[in-house]
């Protein structure tokens, strides 16, 4: 598999998809033609353009909200999975060291018990 998309690229793709939605553009083009041939007044075209801008805005807003939400969640997860939190790491380090000490002690006790049992 070749190089993956970045989340930014993915976002750009989605935004483009909304901004330049094919059907809308075709419709705008058709309207432009109709205006040029005098079939409809230019006012209709202007209204349509403004409306489409509104629709685009309405579509883009949830994407950005979700993107922000998803990005935050993803960051947390990433932080978690990548272990970049230093406090946790320190605690973990301490606990590991403690566990090593405990383990040494347990091992020492075990060795003694084993010897005593054999004797």
């Amino acid at each position: 598999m070749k190089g993956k998309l970045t989340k930014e690229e993915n976002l750009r793709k989605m935004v483009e998809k909304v901004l330049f939605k094919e059907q809308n553009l075709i419709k705008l083009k058709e309207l432009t033609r109709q205006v040029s041939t005098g079939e409809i007044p230019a006012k209709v075209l202007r209204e349509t353009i403004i409306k489409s801008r509104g629709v685009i805005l309405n579509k883009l807003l949830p994407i950005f909200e979700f993107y922000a939400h998803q990005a935050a969640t993803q960051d947390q997860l990433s932080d978690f999975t990548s272990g970049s939190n230093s406090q946790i790491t320190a605690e973990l380090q301490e606990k590991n060291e403690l566990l090593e000490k405990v383990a040494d002690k347990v091992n020492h006790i075990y060795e003694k018990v084993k010897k005593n049992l054999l004797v």
Partner: protein
Amino acid sequence: MVQSRTPKELSNKAGGKKYFETHEDKSEEDKEYLNIWDANPAFKDINIKRSIIRSLSLLIMALTFIISLYILTNNLRTSVGLGIFFIIIFVIVFHDEFFYLQSLFSYFFGGIVSFDPFEPYEFWFNKDDPTTLFTYNKKDLITVAMRIYSIEVIPENVNPNIKRFVQSLSVKDVRISYSYQVVQRPIINLFDKNASQQETINSFSSKIGKIYFTVFCDIKGMLTNNKIERLDYFIKEYSSILKSNIVANFHHFKAKLLSDNALVNALRLLYTRVDSNENKGKSKKTIKSFNGYIFFKLLVLCFILIYTGWFIFHTLISNFLFVLIIDGIITLFMIFFWWRSVLFGISRRKLIKTPETVLVSPFKDVKFYIIRKFPYSLFMHIDNRLLLGMKMVNLKHMYKSSYCKFDRLIEALNNHSINFTYTLKNEPLYYYYFEKHGLDSVHEKIRHNILFHPYYKIKNSIEEEEWLAYRKGIWYSFLTISVNNYEFLNSINTSDFERIEEVINSQIKTLKGAFHINFHNYKVEDLKNNRLLSGYLFSVFKHNNFRLNGSHLHYLMLQGATLVPLNYIVNILRKSVKTIIGAEFNTPLHLRNFATIGYTINTEVLEQEVSAGFTYKQLKNLLIVNGTPLSREFTLMKIVSELIQKGKPSLIFDFNGKWARLLSLFEGSQFMKDILHFRLGSAFTANPLISEIPYDKHNPEYIEYMLDAFALAFKKDQRTIDMFRNTISKNPEMDLPSMQLELQTQSDWQKTPLSYSFQNLFSDLTQQDRTFFQDLQGDSKNKILSHDFICNDKTIIVDLSILKDLNKKIFFAFLIISKIIHYIRYGNEYHKKIIIIPRIDLFFEARFLDMRLNYGKINSFLDPLVEHGFGLIFSANQIHYLHPNVHTYFNNIITFRATYNRDIAILRNLMSLQEIVGTGVYSSTRNQTYQLEYLKTLSNNQVLIRRDDIYQTFPAEIDWNNIKEVKPYTYEQTLEFMDSQGYDLRSTEKRILDGAMQTIFEKDLGSYFFYIDEIINFFKQVKSVDKIGNFYENKIKKELMKWLYPKLSKKTNNKESAKKVRDNIYEKLLKHGYLEEDHPKKASGSESLRTSYKVGDQYEEALNDYFTIKGKSPDIQIEELNEDIFPSQPRKYIIRQEDLYEALSREFSDFYYEMSKIYNFINKEQYSTAIKIEQTIVKKFLFNVYRHYYNIDRAVMPSEMYPFLELLENIEGFPFTVEELKYYIDQYQKINLDIDDPRMVAENAYESLYNFFSKINNYILKV
């Protein structure tokens, strides 16, 4: 025109009282009313009075001398002896004054004598009137002025009315002498330097006929201004009378008044030469005095005077004064009767001093020979090249009941291939002369009646005239007929003369035989020696007044009615003279013209009449048809040149590049600034897909015009044009070459018959032609646009000659017209010009328009132009090709020669060429106008014109000589001229050529140049990795496809077809060295065996060339341009097959968007809406991925999904198992919307879906 009638018919008509022989013998007289004498009175042309005086004077001189000597010497023998000696000396010294002794001396010195019969003659014109030739006999002091009419054209269907012609010239107060001459000779034109030798050889046996009518008048004595003026006055009057008579009686004959060289050639008679200018203006210093044997003559004269004076003084009266008076009288007598030439010195000065006089020497290069052995022959050696011998007979007698068949004589001569001259000189007589010289010969009865009969007696001058008129006058007539033969010989000897003599001897016998067969009761006499020479001079001068003492030829007194058959222009002459159909046209004299283009032709006399032309209004709808392309073009140029001079602008479509003549024509004139010349491909181009109006909202309307122009010019059927239209409407941004490429790249199975037809549209246009369709780069202000042609008040020549085929030229013309129509339709400013388009029949072709059942196209093109005040002058090669609907636009028509029946049929109706209904032209029987025949035989610049203000069509001649002769501007001159007009066409041309220049990419990639941007991007990508190695064929192809695909996907849905295009491009890149083989070294130092590729040097070179020519910067952000933001069709499910990652990532954005909507709806507490999306979101996502992956565009059955889910599961790193995927698909579909707590359901589902989303997201995106 009536045929000549028999005498019987005439006599029947005559109801006069008496002009027949007797009242008693009327029935007999009716038949033979002209038999007034048994033998016509015959005479010899000798000045009798003068001869008698001279004879007597010689006798008196001799007797006086003898008597005086006898008185002095008293010795009779000595006196008589000396007297005879004196006479002999006198005769010898003055031998040139004796007709029969002129050549006497010559004969003494040899058998062959060279002489110059024209030595005593001088010929000259007046500078301002080359139609009158003057001849002056230096010896006899006779000046003759002559004018000659040559019958240039004989009508095929009309005979001349010779009877009336003869009668008219004999009536009182007119009565002029004239001569009629027919010459039939070989086409010898060796002296014309323009005539090729081959032409001369090929015309060797051809004969040409010349028919001359000559009028002349003479005056005797020394030359004075007054005499020349009188001659000039009379000759003009006579020629005017003769011309009027010819016009009146020779309908449809063309009688041309000869002038200058033609007139001189009429004298030369037996051959023609083109005189150079030097030859014409003979130096006046060469005029020699004609005082032959001056010393001896002076000696004789002195002797006579001294002897007479001495004798009188010593014998009779010793008075010195008396002696002087007597000597003076003798001197005057001698000068006037024996030595007139001594007076020429005075006339010579006159000739030299008059500046208007232009001397000519018609016989400068001719040597004349007479040979003692052949007294009946005259030989001429012309220009030391042509030896010509002639014999001649002279009509001597005519007896009762004579009749002649002149045409049969000519037929016989033609049959024997004999060259001949027939010269008839006629002089009408007053009754007085008849009475004096002819009455005695008249039958006794008639003479008695005329003189004494109480009722028939001629009592007064009125009755004399009546008597004459009834017989069409009484005439003195000279007739000579000669035969001649020739050989081309540079040097001559006796045997040459003998050879020719043999031939002409046989010919004269044939002539006489034929003459006697066809001229009953006529008697001719062979001419010899000086009389033969006289006969030759008679035929040259066409009159007998060249000698004071007479020509010594025989002549007869004839009645006019008898003269008629001798004077007839017989039908057989049509074989050697140009003939035409005598057509009847009422050529109008009342033409009002705004622009004149030539002259009307009066077909009665075949002469120019009044100026022919049109009003401006008529010029705005003028159709010129048939004839040759050149003749139509010259006519158009003539019209335009007139319009320019009248300040009316035109727009001319020049198909042949010949209109630069107009620039030459007006060079240096004030009109030059009113002309502009633009050449297609040099000054302008025309993009057929745009109207050239900036921001044109109505371009589609223009496109319709363009399509019509395309269809009509290239004769394309409606379906093809519809397809063209659709293609244009679907691809408004495309240019013609792109459309062609699109067709070429279609797979075979995609092509329909229409595709081929559509593709053929472009096959009509060559690569070069298509450069004329390109949009010229640069600011519109610097471009010549089509509507610019009508935006100024100048005459504009649009030169389309660079195109080879006519249909392309006509297409371009109408492409421009379409743009103009579109331009004027939307209220833009313009100048109303006259639009001139040739070959309109190619465009509005009748058969094609009828086949399409759409003649309305004609209206759609012409109506807007007419409505907006434009004028139309169209020309068509053959009118029958032109659709009849076009005819309705043109009320004014010019047609050249038409021969094809369909053309004639159409022109007949259009121009009202018709036969006369009811009364005939000259008689009730002649009701054929032959207008159609005339149309068929029009030549060169002759036309028929139909004007809307004149009922009848009339013939005319276009005067295009000045246009024809002028040398057209060269292209360089035109560019310079346009530069002076403020148009830098050189730079425009450069821009066009640059635009048309092919890049290396274009040459190498051919039609795949369409993908050039993708290919450049591909190389950009490849260049960064190609040196590393492992860049194998498959890899390259895969990468290439990646770049090509976005654009390619618009062209084809078919994977195979796309691959084919990719492979073809790959092959071309390889072939032309854009990709080169490479075997990079491995770490071990060895080269890899498998062929890898790297970018070749050709790529860099081609890239630089591309950017240089196209003026693009290599740093251009091609990637941005590559984005397919306006796909023409939705191709949602069409991506590269079996590329799972691509399928997932492409579909993931939709999934992302859907998720965002769920998230948003939940946030907005619209749970039901959120749930609805949640129910299908996963299913939709996976099913769409399936469609992508298998490149299908249909509904997918759930059963088909299982193997696909297994496939997904088996992919490395894919985060779900089959069971999990099934769970996600099915689980949420089961959610019931009628639940109590949709929030919880929606949020739970969201949590679960978000988990799915995150895993996919992590799989697809870089985290």
